[in-house]
């Protein structure tokens, strides 16, 4: 087989705002054979997207290709002028972005945008392009292929939009298709359908592809070979089977290991006496929008949910986006006052709104959010951020605060010197540790963790989970752990509550999750989580009725 792509000693430089140049890609070389799908995998900042973009001869603003060559079908994309590149983009190489919603123009119909590439390059008549688009819609298993082109982007679901953006990329018959994290923003049950569609289109067309992702299990389903990247350098290149089964490089081993966290065994309560639960939520309802005549808000997000959390135990809440799990956390924390129901902490009833709660009650219940950087005030130093809850809840003096901040930073395994920095000067994992430290500063009994690992890379997320376990052992905390990621929840929780469309549908132990006796939706969710097995997607069989009933494709 001939190589379609040959990358040799690629270097990409970026210029910082102090006019200092940094090598963000160092000496990367690899080949892609005709008809092969190669995955670029690595954590954020590893340069995987940057490398993928150089295949189109593109670098992001402030970056430039400073050395090496990127040969695509014998032409050096790194050296061609912009005009020549514009001719090749769409016809030789095409790009499927991470967020399809952001890639579509909301003011044009889908069909107009899908065939735009054909119009720009003058490849065929509009009729022929439409016919070709229809055949692509069918090949990508889109529902109502004849009618979907007339709709606007907001009228189709996220998974459909992602497949439509693949149709947009494929219409010019490119030789190379770049997929940039195309399923990262999708729910697991939706992801399966999109992955299947991509795989079948690529295989039947014999297309060459580059698949950028941080998710090893997703990559395992679609790629022939995997390039593992870290810090702009290639760590390891190998076939999918070799990388998964015999990872040679230590970083790859770490990556594979981080994927399979051990399932937590239920901790046995020390005293057998039936104790009062720590946190009890009874028939809680919450929603958004103006209050209707019946006393309920316009859009209900959480409907009569009961949960109970025992001392020293962890409860996982799992469900897909839009199931109301984050709203539940906000209602418990009093950020969004619930419209109905009761919240009892240590036997005391809490006011619906945080504004009316006792400071002592607020202290015992802390919340940590998904987006670590949005949860830290960018204009304050870490010192100030951690000092505030200490002063607010414990009225500590300046000297006590300084001591306690050092202790807190030790607890979350950060060097004490970070307290002089601002949040923007920390990495994503470090920021999430600061968020945890801020919650710990209050000496809480319960920490609500709202998707706290979802925005982090696999290896970093695994370290945060380990940290949570360690803190629990030392401080006797309880967590309510909200996530869409089943493996994370299984790793830390004693019980799992499954939510669907605002309701809790069952509460079970992690080991029993997805077992035959469970709720059908739990089974669907369980079977939809990608596994580190290249044959998983092909072998996966799901009951179509179940899928139709519960998934929002």
């Amino acid at each position, binding site marked *: 087989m001939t190589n379609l792509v040959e990358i040799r000693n690629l270097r990409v430089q970026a210029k*910082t*705002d*102090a006019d*200092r140049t940094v090598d963000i890609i160092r000496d990367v070389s690899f080949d892609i054979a005709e008809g092969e799908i190669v995955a670029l995998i690595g954590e954020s900042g590893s340069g995987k997207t940057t490398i993928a973009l150089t295949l189109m001869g593109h670098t992001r603003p402030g970056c430039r290709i400073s050395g090496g060559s990127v040969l695509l079908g014998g032409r050096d994309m790194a050296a061609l002028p912009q005009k020549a590149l514009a001719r090749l983009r769409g016809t030789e190489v095409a790009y499927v972005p991470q967020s399809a919603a952001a890639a579509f123009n909301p003011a044009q119909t889908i069909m107009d945008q899908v065939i735009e590439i054909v119009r720009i390059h003058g490849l065929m008549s509009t009729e022929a392009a439409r016919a070709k688009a229809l055949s692509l819609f069918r090949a990508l298993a889109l529902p109502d292929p004849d009618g979907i082109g007339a709709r606007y982007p907001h009228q189709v679901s996220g998974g459909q939009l992602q497949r439509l953006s693949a149709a947009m990329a494929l219409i010019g018959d490119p030789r190379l298709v770049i997929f940039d994290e195309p399923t990262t923003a999708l729910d697991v049950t939706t992801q399966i359908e999109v992955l299947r569609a991509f795989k079948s289109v690529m295989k039947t067309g014999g297309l060459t592809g580059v698949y950028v992702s941080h998710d090893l299990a997703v990559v395992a389903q679609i790629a022939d070979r995997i390039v593992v990247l870290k810090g702009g350098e290639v760590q390891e290149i190998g076939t999918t089977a070799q990388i998964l089964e015999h990872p040679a490089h230590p970083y790859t081993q770490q990556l594979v290991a981080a994927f399979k966290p051990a399932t937590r065994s239920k901790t046995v309560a020390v005293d057998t006496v039936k104790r009062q639960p720590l946190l009890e939520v009874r028939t809680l309802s919450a929603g958004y929008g103006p209050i209707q005549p019946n006393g309920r808000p316009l859009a209900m997000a959480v409907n009569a949910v009961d949960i109970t959390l025992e001392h020293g135990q962890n409860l996982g809440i799992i469900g897909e986006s839009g199931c109301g799990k984050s709203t539940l956390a906000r209602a418990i*924390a*009093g*950020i969004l006052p619930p419209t109905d129901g009761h919240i009892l902490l240590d036997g005391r009833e809490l006011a619906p709104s*945080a*504004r009316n*709660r006792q*400071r002592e009650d*607020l202290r015992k219940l*802390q*919340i940590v*959010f998904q*987006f670590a950087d*949005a*949860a*830290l*005030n*960018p*204009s*304050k130093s870490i010192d100030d951020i951690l000092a*505030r*809850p200490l002063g*607010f*809840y414990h009225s500590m003096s300046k000297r006590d605060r300084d001591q306690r901040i050092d202790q807190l930073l030790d607890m979350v395994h950060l060097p004490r010197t970070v307290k002089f920095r601002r949040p*923007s*000067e920390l990495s994503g994992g470090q920021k999430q540790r600061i968020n945890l430290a*801020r919650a710990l500063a*209050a000496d809480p009994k319960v920490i609500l963790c709202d998707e706290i690992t979802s925005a982090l890379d696999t290896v970093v997320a695994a370290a945060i989970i380990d940290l949570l376990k360690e803190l629990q052992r030392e401080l006797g905390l309880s967590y309510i752990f909200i996530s869409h990621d089943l493996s994370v929840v299984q790793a830390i929780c004693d019980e799992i509550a499954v939510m669907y469309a605002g309701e809790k549908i069952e509460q079970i132990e992690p080991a029993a999750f997805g077992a035959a006796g469970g709720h059908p939706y739990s089974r669907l969710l369980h079977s939809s989580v990608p596994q580190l097995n290249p044959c998983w997607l092909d072998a996966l069989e799901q009951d179509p009725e179940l899928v139709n009933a519960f998934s929002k494709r």
Partner: protein
Amino acid sequence: MARFALSPRRLGYRFNAVGMIGLSVIVFWATVAVFAPLLIPYPIGDIVDYDYFGPMSAQFLLGTDYLGRDMLSRILMGARYTVGISLAAVALACFSGVALGMSAAVAGGWFDAILSRFLDALNSIPSKLFGLVVVAAVGSSMPVLVLTLAVIYTPGSYRFARALAVNINSMDFVTVARARGEKTLYLIGSEILPNILGPVLADLGLRFVFIVLLLSGLSFLGLGVQPPNADWGALVRENIGGLPFGAPAVMVPSLAIASLTISVNMLIDNLPVKIRDRSNG
């Protein structure tokens, strides 16, 4: 590159040449405003030349005005009114606008609704007309001018600050502070203000320019600073008769207004930016 001790780069800021030029012109006029009484060669009310609209000469560096008064002295003293009144007015307008805007964004609900509608109504009155009516009714004095200008420019500042604060208010770190039980004053002062300070300062610079222009406009119409004192706008008006002769008496105050407003714009468009990349010290 040789670096001197107070170089902005050394302090961790990047500041370009255009911004520095703007800043130096502003500092120049501010110094002039402060030290004007010590600098003027002649008292501003005295008629010192027999000729009117006199040209530039060694005796009268910027010529003389329509009554034969020394132009240099009048411009130096005019800086006090133009820079002083405008600065006081812009400080008042931005302080009240920003404070109200942030409160409205954080409090929301009816407080926000009523305040917004009220200030929108105020905003809908044309600014020059409003200034004319107030000054004509109450009479022209320094406090009246400052207050009128401040009232005219508060709604704009309020709108701007509220729009910024609403965005910050929806960020998770504000939610965290709310969940912690923080009160409105802390939310405004500690969580929101530091994050909107940059744009608010830029807005303050812009508004300063508008106020200088409006004050000059009012003075041009005879409703601003009263004779024998004169701000730059008044200087242009009283010497407008010299325009056909190309008298410096009308050109120089115009240039002074232009130099101040343009340099404020140059500065706010090129405010020092904090360098985040600390790796090479």
